[in-house]
C-alpha cells in the first residue's frame, strides 16, 4: 500500500505495510476463531472477514480458489464416514466395503461446516504469506540468528525452484519419449532431478560465498564447532534412549542438545555482526490491528461473563437444528477485518 508524506517540502510516496508481528497476531486470531467454533453463523462471519482482508491485502493470490474443493472434499468424506444423524439421505448396500450404511443430512452439513473452517484457515495463511515475505518474517529472529534466517530463506526458496526443475525434467524426458504411466516411471525423473538439484546447490553456495556469506572475518570457529558436535551427539543419544527405553533422560538429552545447538548458532551469528536493511517500524495502526486481534482471541478463548460460550458450539447430530447466534461474538469477530480496513483507509 502507498501512503503520502512530506519530505524536504515535497510530497513523496512511501511504501508501507503492516508490521509482521501485527500480521502474525491477525493470523493467530483467525486460526483460533476458526478452530474454536463450529457454529456456522459465527464461522461464516469469520470467513467473510478473512476473505475481505485477503482480497484487499493480496488480491492476486486467489486464496479461495481451492475453497470449493476443500468444502466438497470435507463434505463427501464426512458423509461417507460418519453414520450418525436422523435424516437419512441414501442407504448404501451393506455389501459395499467401508462406505456401507446410512448417509445422513447431518453428516453432510457437519462436513460442509468443517470444510468452511478449513477453507478459512487456508485463506488466512495464504493472505498472510503473500503479505509478509519469508525474509521479513525471519527478521523477527534476533540478529545473532541471522545466518539461520538466511539459511531458512534459501531453503524456502529452494522448494519452488525444485518444483520448477521437476517440471523441466518431466518435459525433457517426455521429449525423449518417456511416458509417466505408473509410479515406476517417476524413478526415471529422480536421477536428473537429484543431479540438477546438486548442481544448483553448488552454484548457489559459490554465489553466496562470493557475496560474503557466511561472514567469517574475526570469527572463532572452535567453540561453536564443539558445541554443535556435542549438541548433535546429545540429540542423537536422546532420540535413541527415548526410542528404546522411553526414559525421561531421553527428553533431557533432547532438550540439552537443542539448547547447545541454539547457543552454537547464536555464537556464530554474534561473532560476525549483521545489520538489517528492512526495518519496519511499529506504527499506531499496527497497535490497532494487534488490539483487535487480541480482542478476538479473548472473546473466543476466555470465560468472559457477557459471552455465552454455548453459542460457539454447534452439532447437527442427532437431528439438524438452527444454530444460535450471539451478537457480541459476532461483533468481536469483526476484529479480523483489521488489516483490510487499514489498507482501505490508507488508500483513501
Amino acid at each position, binding site marked *: 500500500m502507498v501512503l503520502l508524506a512530506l519530505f524536504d517540502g515535497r510530497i513523496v510516496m512511501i*511504501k508501507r505495510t503492516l508490521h509482521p508481528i501485527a500480521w502474525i497476531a491477525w493470523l493467530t486470531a483467525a486460526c483460533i476463531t476458526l478452530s474454536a467454533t463450529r457454529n456456522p453463523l459465527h464461522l461464516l462471519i469469520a470467513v467473510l472477514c478473512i476473505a475481505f482482508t485477503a482480497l484487499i491485502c493480496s488480491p492476486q493470490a486467489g486464496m479461495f480458489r481451492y475453497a470449493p474443493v476443500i468444502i466438497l472434499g470435507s463434505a463427501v468424506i464426512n458423509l461417507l464416514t460418519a453414520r450418525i444423524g436422523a435424516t437419512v439421505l441414501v442407504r448404501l448396500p451393506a455389501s459395499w466395503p467401508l462406505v456401507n450404511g446410512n448417509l445422513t443430512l447431518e453428516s453432510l452439513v457437519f462436513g460442509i461446516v468443517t470444510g468452511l473452517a478449513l477453507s478459512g484457515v487456508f485463506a488466512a495463511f495464504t493472505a498472510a504469506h503473500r503479505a509478509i*515475505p*519469508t*525474509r521479513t518474517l525471519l527478521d523477527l529472529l534476533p540478529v545473532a540468528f*541471522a545466518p539461520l534466517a*538466511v539459511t531458512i*530463506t*534459501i531453503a524456502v*526458496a529452494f522448494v519452488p525452484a525444485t518444483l520448477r526443475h521437476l517440471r*523441466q*525434467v518431466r*518435459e*525433457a*524426458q*517426455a*521429449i*525423449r*519419449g*518417456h*511416458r509417466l504411466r505408473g509410479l515406476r516411471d517417476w524413478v526415471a525423473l529422480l*536421477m*536428473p532431478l537429484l*543431479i*540438477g538439484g546438486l*548442481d*544448483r546447490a*553448488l*552454484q*548457489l*553456495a*559459490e*554465489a*553466496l*560465498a*562470493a*557475496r*560474503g*556469506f*557466511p*561472514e*567469517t*572475518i574475526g570469527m572463532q570457529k572452535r567453540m561453536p564447532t564443539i558445541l554443535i558436535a556435542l549438541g548433535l551427539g546429545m540429540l542423537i543419544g536422546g532420540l535413541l534412549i527415548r526410542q528404546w527405553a522411553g526414559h525421561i533422560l531421553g527428553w533431557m538429552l533432547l532438550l540439552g542438545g537443542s539448547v547447545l545447538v541454539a547457543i552454537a548458532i547464536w555464537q556464530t551469528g554474534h561473532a*560476525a*555482526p*549483521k*545489520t*538489517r*536493511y*528492512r*526495518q519496519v517500524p511499529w506504527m499506531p495502526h499496527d497497535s490497532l490491528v494487534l488490539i483487535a486481534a487480541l480482542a478476538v482471541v479473548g472473546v473466543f478463548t476466555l470465560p468472559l461473563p457477557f459471552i455465552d460460550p454455548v453459542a460457539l458450539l454447534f452439532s447437527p447430530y442427532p437431528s439438524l437444528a438452527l444454530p444460535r447466534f450471539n451478537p457480541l461474538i459476532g461483533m468481536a469477530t469483526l476484529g479480523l477485518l483489521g488489516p483490510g480496513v487499514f489498507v482501505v483507509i490508507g488508500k483513501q
Partner: protein
Amino acid sequence: MITFNNLTYTYPNTSHPALRDVTLSLPEGSVALVIGSSGSGKSTLLRCIGGLVPHFSGGTIQGSVLVAGHDPVLDGPTRMSRLVGYVFQDPETQAVMERVEDEIAFGLEQAGIPHAEMRIRVEEVLDLLDLAVLRDRLLESLSGGERQRVAIAAALALRPRVLVLDEPTSQLDPQSAEDVLSALIRLNQDLGLTIILAEHRLERVLPFVDTLIYLDDTQPGALVGLPSTLAAELPLHPPIVAIAKALGWHPTPLTIKAGLVFSRTVARSSSLTQPSARTEQTTAVIDIRGLHISYDKTPALRGVDLAVQPGEVVVLLGRSGSGKSSLLRSLVGLTPAERGQIIMNGQDIRGRETADICRDVAFLPQDPNALLFAETVHEELQITIQNHTGRSKTQQNAPSKIGNHQPDPDRLLKRLGIAALAQRYPRDLSVGERQRVALGAVLIMGAQVLLLDEPTRGLDYRAKQLLADLLVGWRTEGSAILLVTHDVEFAALVATRVVLLARGEIIADGDSSPTLSASPLFAPQAARLFPGTGWLTVEAVLRGIEQG
C-alpha cells in the same frame, strides 16, 4: 590491480591443468575480456580472482595471483567479496532474496554495514544500473536482462574494486545484452571500476574493452594485448574482424562505425546477391493455423499462422517475451494451444502426448542439461530408443528397423562429431559437446522435423560453426528446421527464412537476406557493414566482392 604470476591450476582427479603458466597484469580501471574456446579455462581464471578456485573446487595450484595486493588463495572467497564482485552466467542461480531491493542489500547485511549507509549504497546502485523503478518487484517477475542488472547491482553494492562477470550476456536478447553492457561501460567510466569478463559473442563486447586475454587449452600461458592488434591474430573473432582480416583493413576495426570507413571504399554489387535458398512449395511438415496461447489470461501468441516445408531452416527472432519459445513448445504439446490448429507431419497434434509427438519431431530445449542423466553418451541415445520402442539396451543390439528408420547410435554420434566421447559421462563434457549429445538424444529416432530453442547459448565460434554445418547438412537432406535464437550472426549462417515475432504476432516473414538486412535490431555485422547488398555472412561478403 590484478596480477597472475605463472599460475598453474589443476582440478581434482584430472591430469590436464585447466590453467598453465598464466602470467598477466591488469592495471586499475581496465576493462578486460577473456576469450577462448569452451574448456580453455576462462571461468577458472575468473574464479581464481575471487578465490572460488581453489576454495570451492579443490585441486592443486602453483604460482600466484594477487588482487589489489591480496592473495585470493589465502583469503578465500568470503573475504575477497569485499574486493571482488562476482556475477555468474545464470542470474537465477545466484539470487537469494525475493525482491530487488532485498537482493541488493543482502551482501551489505552480511558485511554488517550500518543501516544508514546501507540505504545510501542501495540507492546508489539502483540509480547506477537504472533499477529504481524495479526496486519493489519480485525477482521472478523480471526479464533476463533486468535480473542480470540486479545481479550486477548486488555485486556492486559492496563497492568492490574489481567486477568479474562470467558470460553475463549469454542468456540475453540483443537489446537486453546492450543494456547490460552499457551499464558496465558507465560503471567503468564513472567509477573507474576494473572489469574483467568472459564472453563468447565477441561482436557484442569487443568494442568496449581495452584488454584482450586469450586462453588456449593446447598452449601454456595467455595471450594478452589490445583488442585492435590481438583480435585479428586469434582463431576466434567476430565477423567484422574476419572481414577486416580477409580484406586487409588496418587498423582492425572493432565497431561498425570504424568498419564503415573501409567498407565504403569496397566495390560491390548493388543488388541482393545472396541466392534465395527457399525450397519449392511442397506439403508443409509444420503447419500452424491461427494459434493463440495465453498464460494466466496474458496472451503469448495471437493468431499465428506459419508453415515450414522440408528443406527449410526457419529462424524465429524477436525480443524476450515475444512468444518465440511458446510457439516452439506448443508444437510438441508442452504448452497447450488456446485456439487454432497445429499439424505436424500431416497429423493434428491435439490430444496427442508429447512423448508421442516427439517420435517424429526432435525438440532441443534451451537447457540441454535437463535432457542428460545417463552414465555415458552412448547410453543417452539408447535410452531414447528404449523410451520410444520399449526395447531394452540388449535388445537394441539386434538390428531392427523402426518404421523406415533404423536407429544407429554409433552412426549418429559419428555424424555429430562426438563418436570419440561415446563412453564419457555427458555432464563432464564442454557446453558444445553436451549440446551435441542432447541433439543426438532427440534425433536418434530419425525425425525429419527439428525444433531448437536457443541452441547457441554458451557456444564458442567453433562450436557454433559445427552446429551450423550440421543444420545445413540436415536441411539439404530434406529436414525441416525451426529454430529460436537471439544470436543474429548464427541466424545469418543457417537461415533460409526469417520470421520476426513481436507481442505474440508475426510482424515479418521472408527470405533471410532481405528480412535480416532490413532490420536495424537484427541485422548481422556483415549486413551493417555493407547495407543494401543483402550480404549476411563473411562468406557472402567475400563472394560478393569477388563477383562485384
